[in-house]
């Protein structure tokens, strides 16, 4: 109701589109009205656009700092899923002899670890984002959403790198056993988007909660461990007895991860109904996360 009146008097980049409510004064600089918060769920796209460079700088900082602080840098993005894949193949594959939908174990595990690793590391980074940046939050304004969002997008760099490794593994098995992804690959962007949205949605909840209760930081490792075993990462979803499927389906990641495996290897089926349920839940989590984050955002500088 207030957005439509916004007139850009100067060059767009000089213009500060601002959070609360805006009004226009003919041929004058932008006017910003600061008042107690009254509305829920307002994403000011104009403001977001104005701050887009800051989002870029946050992502750039995180990547840069990580590569400066680690000895092997980018290799971690490959080593982590690779080592886990080897461990799972040995433990759950060779020893426990869990079924793998007819896929070679490395392929079976890596195709699920790809989204899982992205999800779990991103969630950890997103959760600590507000607290980590408290000295900035209490000293300068910018849309707080930039922080969790930057963590979510930053994780995509690692995802890309480990995806390259997956391509190598896939080519190897493709040549040897003729396992190639089919048209299911077209679903890949949608599945990735769902994973990003879920990581962001849960991340918004947890990062805001973490600002009030630092306990979240301690709970998170358990949550992630639990969540991994509640998702078809180390085993196929078909292992779950049918009468418990509905419960299993309440985990939004189960549909997504099964989908990933199907999309990337061409084996098994796309769990359509499961995926639709996951998508609906992910959307609900993301929207509620945004609402909670924004409700918190108002006082975040006071409590963090």
């Amino acid at each position, binding site marked *: 109701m207030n957005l439509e009146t916004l007139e850009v008097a100067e060059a767009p980049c000089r213009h500060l589109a601002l959070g609360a409510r805006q009004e226009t004064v003919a041929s004058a600089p932008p006017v*910003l*009205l600061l008042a107690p918060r009254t509305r829920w769920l307002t994403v000011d796209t104009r403001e977001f656009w104005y701050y887009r460079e800051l989002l870029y700088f946050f992502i750039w900082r995180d990547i840069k700092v990580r590569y400066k602080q680690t000895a092997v840098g980018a290799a971690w993005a490959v080593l982590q899923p690779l080592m886990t894949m080897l461990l799972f193949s040995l433990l759950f594959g060779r020893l426990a002899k869990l079924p793998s939908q007819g896929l070679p174990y490395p392929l079976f595990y890596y195709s699920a670890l790809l989204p899982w690793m992205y999800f779990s590391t991103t969630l950890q980074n997103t959760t600590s984002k507000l607290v980590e940046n408290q000295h900035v939050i209490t000293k300068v304004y910018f849309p707080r959403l930039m922080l969790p969002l930057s963590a979510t997008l930053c994780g995509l760099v690692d995802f890309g790198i480990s995806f390259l490794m997956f391509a190598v593994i896939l080519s190897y098995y493709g040549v040897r056993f003729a396992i190639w992804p089919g048209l299911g690959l077209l679903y890949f962007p949608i599945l990735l988007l769902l994973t990003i949205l879920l990581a962001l949605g849960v991340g918004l909840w947890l990062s805001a909660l973490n600002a009030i209760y630092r306990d979240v930081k301690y709970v998170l490792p358990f949550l992630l461990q639990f969540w991994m075993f509640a998702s078809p990462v180390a085993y196929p979803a078909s292992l779950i007895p049918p009468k418990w499927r509905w419960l299993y389906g309440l985990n939004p990641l189960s549909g997504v991860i099964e989908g990933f495996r199907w999309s990337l290897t061409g084996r098994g089926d796309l769990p359509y109904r499961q995926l639709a349920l996951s998508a609906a839940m992910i959307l609900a989590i993301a929207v509620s996360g945004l609402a909670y984050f924004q409700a918190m955002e108002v006082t975040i500088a006071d409590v963090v």
Partner: protein
Amino acid sequence: MHSAAIQVEGLGKRYRVGEREHYRSLRDRISSASSAATRFLTGAKRRAVGSHASVLWALKDVWLSVPEGQVAGLIGRNGAGKSTLLKVLARITKPTAGFARIRGRIGSLLEVGTGFHPELTGRENVYLSGAILGMKRAEIARKFDEIAAFSEVERFLDTPLKHYSSGMQMRLAFAVAAHLEPEILLVDEVLAVGDTAFQRKCLGKMGEVAQEGRTILFVSHNLGAITRLCSRVLWLDGGRVRMDGAAASVVSAYQLEGFSHRAQWARPASLAATGDFSFTEVAVQSRTGDRTSLFDGNEPVNIGLVYGVRRRLSGCQVGIRVLNAEGVVIFTSGDADFLGTSAAPKDPGHYRATVQIPACFLAPGSYSVLVAAHLPERSVYEVIEGAVAFEITAPGSLAALDGRLGVVTPLLPWSTNRCEEAQP
């Protein structure tokens, strides 16, 4: 109506005093990760029940209007609401009541080096900090050489910030800040740190900025700088504007109040002790330990400080600064002034310190004492301006009697020998 750059109407900001402490106590109760989940639940419940937290209005019914191009100063004691006002105007926190209308691009400088990262190089930090403070990438690139020259650390721009001395970091941070070009600039106390020469350079730069017609709201404990830079000063007291007018008259009225000889300062309830460091009590004492604010010139003046430390602070120094009635700084003294010894880290706990101003040192007159704790050239933990005040009523030495020049009247040891007899 719309001609003001900053128009504040009935602005209020309420804090629940218990809020922060609540978080702390919750954390304290958690000792092991394994019990975290259950504690979390009890904590959440406790929070809902614990609505008895007392309410504090850091700002209440503040009305003010700053016309475009004016440089206005904001003074007041700690807890008067100066920083809260800047935070509301800078959009860091939302007001609870009333509203403010800001006309123009606003920038805030509430800290030096906001967003600096030790792992990144000086060059990278200029970009990062600039972006966080609201500059565009192209703008930073355009001003980069100027920023580098201003910082005087050009040679180290490709060195990670962690290898910089704190003074160098400060220079770089100021250089970025000095090149911000918003139409409205909010500045908080940032000039309290750094060496004098560089401070002067920054004040000069700020004066320049002011002359370019930008609107500035400037909070400082440095009354000299306020009077020099600002044409108008607002005095905040207890979250309200107490006085608003020409710089000189407001500053002198403020100082006058500061000299209503208070021998003791105790932390007011309005000033929650939430930081890592907080003063709880400051007192002026006689040689015998009595609280008094009237001294004879030949008596020493003891300043007693009581403070609490919540987190181990290494390099933290506690100091006092004595100012005379004209606001001239007579001297500044810190608890780690001896050369060659670095300040011992302060472990959590309560501390009691006393510093003695020797007899026959201060001339008769009124003095106010500022107490502060800081990490030299890095950060200021707490400053209590005009915490206590005292008066020297009678001269302690001849030096104070004959109206000679000088702000102090120390009795210095003289040694005089006749080396040679005069030739007849």
